[in-house]
């Protein structure tokens, strides 16, 4: 088990897994073809969380709204603990997320990053750019005409 994992790095991959498209993640995971044996610490369960935000990242926190989250926790044969917290109600997706989180703490991390996480990162980037492009196309430029009054 590796111990030199930073909190930021783990946050990054958990964030990718949480937002990933289920079909995409399932496909990448089955292509990776390395299903570890594990025991449940917490079988997948569906619940709600309150999403909170701050206006401009500095204001007082306010409740943005509730969203559905599925979570689970498992432990691999060597004792590594993986947590999966994903958007939506999909229990298989939470299971894959927990397995990826656990394996990212083991020697399989480099292969796994190439096979799954980089593809997810790319997909997220593509989605983000498509959305930005769509928004940019509807941008309206305002400018003032000089009125010929004199």
């Amino acid at each position: 088990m590796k111990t030199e994992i930073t909190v930021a790095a783990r946050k990054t991959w958990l964030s990718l897994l949480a937002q990933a498209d289920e079909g995409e993640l399932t496909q990448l995971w089955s292509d990776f073809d390395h299903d570890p044996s594990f025991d449940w610490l917490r079988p997948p369960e569906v619940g709600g969380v309150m999403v909170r935000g701050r206006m401009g990242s500095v204001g007082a926190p306010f409740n943005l709204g509730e969203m559905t989250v599925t979570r689970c926790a498992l432990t691999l044969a060597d004792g590594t603990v993986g947590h999966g917290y994903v958007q939506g109600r999909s229990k298989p997706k939470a299971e894959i997320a927990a397995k990826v989180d656990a394996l990212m703490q083991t020697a399989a991390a480099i292969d796994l990053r190439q096979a799954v996480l980089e593809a997810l990162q790319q997909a997220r980037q593509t989605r983000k750019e498509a959305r930005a492009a769509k928004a940019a196309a509807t941008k309206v430029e305002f400018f003032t005409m000089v009125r010929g009054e004199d």
Partner: protein
Amino acid sequence: MSLNTETNSYGGGFATPPVDAANAFRAAMNAMARPGTVQDILGAEPPAGISPAAGCLLLTLCDPETGVYLAQDVDSAPLRSWLAFHTGAPIVAAEQADFALGSWTDLMPLEQYRVGTSEYPDRSATLIVEIAEFTAPNATLTGPGIMDRAGLALPDIAACQANALQFPLGVDFFFTSGCQLAALPRSTKIMAKD
């Protein structure tokens, strides 16, 4: 579910949380409702150092809004992480605790726990006292929930009597040993057995 408590302390929660927690709650409720009776409570396998009965009680009664105080003899890193993983309960000082866990000697003095206020007597602590075993009763109990009289082995009769005298304020006790528990609410009158 096999456990791997050597490398992490997250295992040993309820296998089927809704059912196990309901059964454990029923045992705790019956124990409180009938002081002096010993109830079976099963389902959790907490980290080494505390009894399964105490572990079940913590899983059933604690949540992120209840502060837990761990006395010196039971306080350990595995127990803290186990409690955080399964219940999310914060670890607090004895003066703010809703639940306190430990052996009788390590939980003392009794005066440090919250006893509630006249307006809100429920804002008091519940002590989960670990004992080696339920030995022969040294105290006779009477009061609500007891038909005639009941008996229980108490670690310190004088301290429990002083607590009962504060009624409606005071703390409540669970006594746990192995997979069994008994309870002593503040409403019970205690007499030493001669």
